[in-house]
């Protein structure tokens, strides 16, 4: 996760300590005073969902699914995450709000000392539910919207999904819940980026997370719907422009990019072009501390049947199952050669990723996209959009100093 607003506009946020080891530089209450040691855990609390989104990595279904954690199992699981030092658990799905015990589990995570946050399509977030989640200690609600109304509803497989999501966002904001947008960028909706930001700023939202498409779950079936690398670069540039423009008008929106660490190098280049070498160097230093693609290190996923994955998109491979071993034991077990190799990937990256000047802030981008398109988890990320000069030339700020 890369914060455009912090790197280009100096917006401090409560994730600065966690992501950039920069708690001291922030005026906001911090999730953690130091860079995380244990991963943020995405928990697919259920596979059930009331929508049928084209890009769903969990391939969620509207029908009930056997094998989900009972309330008792879920609480033991949350206890084990707390014991291991997991800083944040992201209740995800499917749609987590279809679980009747969600509020109870959010309260339990709060009590256990794991910061609970929510990923939802927003359509089930009534006013009462938003208040109950706030009272249970929910710290953040990320609501998915993937385009302006018609496009979003087509993508999500349900008429009225856009309006229902906006109502959910409004209920969260009214309840005083920190709330943000989740937007998966594809070829079908990239043209809506600015309009969606403008619309949701009017609703009262000030946090926007943009996800690049990764090739897991149902998303793997729509690889063709992904942007080309050139289009992706243009979309990221527009998001940078939008963020800077908002801040120059005095509106401090927070914008973040997820899922393609070519964005890290691009932000350094963007900073140099727009603000000069000094800013580019500062951006680079923050991104060094951030550490690049977090797969297998700073983020983990546990699916609705307890399988542990390298990220939420790696649903095709599981390190183990928390019904067999505690999460921390699975995550620490580097006798697994793939886990060890992913964590020690620098010398294994091949092609342009292996020699890229930016690999210390990118770490090769998505190993899953490489695996999905070439069969080799250490091949170049096919969605890296950097050009040859950026990859093989001098770092953006070196030539100017």
């Amino acid at each position, binding site marked *: 996760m890369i914060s455009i607003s912090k790197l280009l506009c100096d917006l401090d946020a409560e994730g600065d300590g966690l992501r950039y080891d920069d708690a001291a530089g922030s005026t906001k209450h911090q999730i953690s005073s130091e860079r995380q040691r244990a991963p943020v855990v995405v928990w697919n609390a259920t596979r059930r969902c009331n929508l049928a989104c084209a890009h769903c990595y969990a391939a969620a279904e*509207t029908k009930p699914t056997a094998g*989900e954690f009972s309330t008792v199992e879920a609480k033991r699981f949350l206890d084990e995450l707390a014991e291991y030092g997991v800083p944040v658990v992201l209740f995800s799905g499917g749609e987590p709000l279809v679980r009747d015990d969600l509020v109870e589990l959010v309260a339990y995570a709060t009590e256990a000392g794991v910061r609970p946050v929510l990923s939802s399509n927003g359509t089930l977030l009534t006013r009462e539910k938003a208040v109950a989640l706030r009272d249970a200690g929910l710290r953040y609600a990320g609501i998915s919207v993937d385009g302006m109304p018609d496009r979003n509803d087509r993508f999500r497989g349900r008429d009225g999904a856009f309006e229902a999501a906006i109502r959910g966002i409004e209920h969260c904001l009214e309840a005083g819940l920190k709330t943000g947008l989740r937007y998966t960028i594809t070829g079908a909706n990239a043209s809506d980026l600015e309009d969606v930001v403008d619309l949701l700023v009017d609703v009262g939202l000030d946090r926007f997370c943009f996800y690049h498409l990764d090739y897991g779950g149902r998303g793997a079936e729509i690889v063709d719907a992904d942007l080309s690398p050139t289009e992706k670069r243009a979309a990221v540039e527009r998001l940078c422009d939008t963020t800077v423009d908002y801040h120059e008008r005095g509106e401090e929106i927070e914008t973040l990019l997820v899922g393609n660490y070519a964005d890290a190098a691009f932000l350094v280049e963007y900073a140099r072009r727009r603000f000069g070498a000094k800013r580019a160097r500062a951006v680079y230093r923050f991104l060094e501390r951030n550490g690049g693609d977090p797969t297998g290190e700073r983020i983990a996923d546990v699916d609705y049947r*307890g399988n542990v994955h390298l990220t939420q998109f790696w*649903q095709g491979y599981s390190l183990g199952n928390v019904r067999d071993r505690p999460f921390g034991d699975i995550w620490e077990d580097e006798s697994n050669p793939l886990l060890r190799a992913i964590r020690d990937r620098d010398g294994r990256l091949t092609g342009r990723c292996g020699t890229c000047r930016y690999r210390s802030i990118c770490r090769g981008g998505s190993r899953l996209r490489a695996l999905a398109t070439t069969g080799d988890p250490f091949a170049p990320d096919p969605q890296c959009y950097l050009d040859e000069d950026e990859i093989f030339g001098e770092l953006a700020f070196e030539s100017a100093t």
Partner: protein
Amino acid sequence: MGETKRRSRIESGDRANPWPQWEVFVRRDRSRPMRHVGSVAAKERAGAHEQASRLFGREAVDVWLCPAADVDRYSTRELGSDSGGETPPSSRDRTASTDDSSVEPTVESAGERS
């Protein structure tokens, strides 16, 4: 020999998410034992072997696969000991049938509640 530890059968043996899981075992060289390295998701054996080979082929002389649902697991671990079987929590809470299609949340009903 010491006293045998008490182990319970882990009831939630089906790990499909929704794709069937195949437990993967690899042997790095002939002198070493097989090692469990997790599971891959695939509809059929050939697909599971292809996935396992992509992930572990460089480091293994042998790859064994076993359908995860066919593994009988006994453990001292308690996470799933009172899971109540294979029923999702929301439907377990209901006393009537588990036909959740009748309680499927919808956008429309969410709107009404709001």
